[in-house]
């Protein structure tokens, strides 16, 4: 029996309802609280950044100009959100959208397209977080009735941008799809889903003899280059490190002479934290069954990751030694010892957590974040206490290493 458009819509509505419920129920209470806290922080940060700008606009042009500024800022946010959704939707349609083999189901193309667009666009809900921050930042500079009246139009702008993004994404995916005779529209895109990935080939492998740890390190680098989620951590780290080196070129007025090295130090540490996340994600990329059925010991696995961390730290120190040319040799040595020491400690902590909590990279990431957060908080309260917290965490995590050989997948 052929499904009618009405029954299709009902079925997809039912699916969307259950998917939403299931996805929310998968977040445990702690994660929900963490996400809530993160949203509040982002909202607060955006509010803090935009509030000053709106104050200046209100001073110069009054409430009407603030409304215009609010609308323009919001529109910019909606454009970014729509662009992101477009790219995501096109990518998902081209690779393989989540769910069953959609073309095997007797669903109408329209209902299916709407469902896939919803699934790609649902991520844009996060735009509400900075959006609320922007809206709150205008509060007080425009009459409150205007603020309230703006809520609905602003919400529609976001929804419209999301809808537009999915429409553009679908068109982009259709442009790239190979047209088979008699197959059009979304069916043409879905029938080609994953075809470009299937066509991809690697160069011939290099069959050489080398120590086991080196083979593991090289494999880690290869995985980093090929897996987006792993690559992003390393790219973030490198970005922060480059910014930290550029911080030495900041124009520093005489009353802010410490700005250069403080910025360089903080940015370098942020990069080191991202390096730690990269090392943990490498552990998460190891298939348990493959690694554990091979004659590989703890030493090899640990040293493979530590060697990468050592090489990265050496690169960071070289970068700063070259960039901080204005420092006296003594000050430069001191800076390099602090940055190098902190990076190595963070990396050792990440390697220990990644290796000992294998294959649960998610727990390792959380513990790493918690330890680093505690170290930062301790540093802010009492100078140098952060080092004690960090080194204690490294020692504590190292005590777990002996359990490595008895870890199980479950």
């Amino acid at each position, binding site marked *: 029996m052929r499904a009618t458009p009405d029954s299709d819509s009902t079925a997809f509505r039912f699916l969307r309802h259950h998917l939403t419920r299931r996805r929310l129920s998968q977040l445990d209470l702690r994660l929900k609280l963490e996400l809530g806290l993160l949203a509040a922080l982002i909202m607060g940060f955006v509010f803090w950044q935009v509030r000053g700008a709106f104050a200046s606009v209100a001073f110069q042009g009054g409430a009407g100009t603030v409304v215009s500024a609010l609308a323009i800022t919001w529109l910019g946010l909606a454009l970014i959100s729509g662009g992101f959704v477009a790219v995501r939707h096109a990518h998902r349609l081209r690779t393989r959208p989540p769910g069953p083999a959609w073309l095997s189901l007797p669903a109408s193309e329209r209902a299916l397209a709407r469902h896939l667009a919803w699934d790609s666009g649902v991520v844009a809900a996060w735009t509400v977080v900075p959006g609320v921050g922007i809206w709150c930042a205008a509060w007080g500079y425009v009459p409150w009735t205007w603020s309230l009246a703006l809520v609905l139009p602003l919400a529609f702008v976001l929804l419209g941008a999301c809808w537009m993004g999915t429409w553009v994404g679908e068109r982009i995916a259709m442009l790239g799809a190979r047209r088979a005779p008699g197959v059009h529209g979304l069916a043409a895109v879905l029938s080609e889903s994953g075809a470009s990935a299937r066509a991809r080939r690697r160069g011939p492998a290099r069959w050489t003899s080398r120590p*086991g740890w080196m083979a593991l390190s090289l494999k880690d680098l290869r995985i980093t280059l090929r897996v987006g989620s792993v690559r992003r951590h390393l790219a973030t780290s490198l970005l922060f490190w480059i910014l930290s080196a550029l911080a030495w070129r900041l124009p520093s007025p005489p009353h802010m002479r410490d700005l250069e090295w403080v910025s360089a130090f903080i940015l370098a540490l942020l990069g080191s934290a991202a390096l730690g996340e990269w090392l943990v994600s490498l552990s998460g990329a190891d298939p*348990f069954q493959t690694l554990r059925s091979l004659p590989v010991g703890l030493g090899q696995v640990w040293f493979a990751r530590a060697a990468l961390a050592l090489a990265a730290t050496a690169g960071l120190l070289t970068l700063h030694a070259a960039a901080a040319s204005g420092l006296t040799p003594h000050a430069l040595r001191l800076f390099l010892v602090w940055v190098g020491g902190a990076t190595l400690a963070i990396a050792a902590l990440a390697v220990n957590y990644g290796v000992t909590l294998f294959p649960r990279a998610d727990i390792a990431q959380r513990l790493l974040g918690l330890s680093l957060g505690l170290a930062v908080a301790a540093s802010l309260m009492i100078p140098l206490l952060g080092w004690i917290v960090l080194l204690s965490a490294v020692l504590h995590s190292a005590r777990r290493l002996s359990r490595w050989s*008895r870890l199980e997948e479950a």
Partner: protein
Amino acid sequence: MLIIHELTRRYGDLVALDRVSFEVQSGEIVGLLGANGAGKSTLLRTAAGLQAPDEGRVEVEGIDVWNEPQAAKRRLGYAAEEPTFYEELSADEYLAFIAVLRNLDPVSARRRAHELLERLGLTGRRDEPVMQFSHGMRKKLSFVAAVLHRPAVLLCDEALDGFDAAGAFEAKAELGALARDGAAVLFSSHVTETIERVCDRAVLLHAGRVARQLSRSAWGDPAPGPSPLEREFLAVAGAEH
């Protein structure tokens, strides 16, 4: 030689393996038969060092798998029921990586890997990322990785499940060759016909216990070579045996 001695493994209240004991001699292929949930995969995973036993021990060539894991795993090959890989590596890169960790001579390992891939019909796909492989191709690759180093003990968990007829025929031939060279092979399957054809002995597991052990004389010699249907398939597939 593989010794499984009084092996017990529990998942909470469920006793998946209950004091299981048997041996697989060098040069012998032993089939492990049992219904779903009988404990076959748990036994093979425990023997391969993937999960620790609650009691008992597993010895590979006299080496305890849990006391000296690296020494034991050097002599062990394991083909999993649901194999996992570094999905982004090509089959060739994956096998080259395995060869380094197993400390194999790169030239002879490459030759053997390519020969096995050729026999199993994967030559044309060896430079493709594993993520693009079908279920059967993944099983074949897992089998090649498990036998690449000519292990002294080979553990196969439903290893031929998903193979096409030509691939299954070649894999059985490789199992026979390994056994003739002195390997001890423990091979689990749901399919009694495969066990009858390939194995010298069968161990029947039921509810985590060894229910019975049978030697080949209990079921007799099957007809040598491929069955009539296999012959037809091989002729169509163009395989030369």
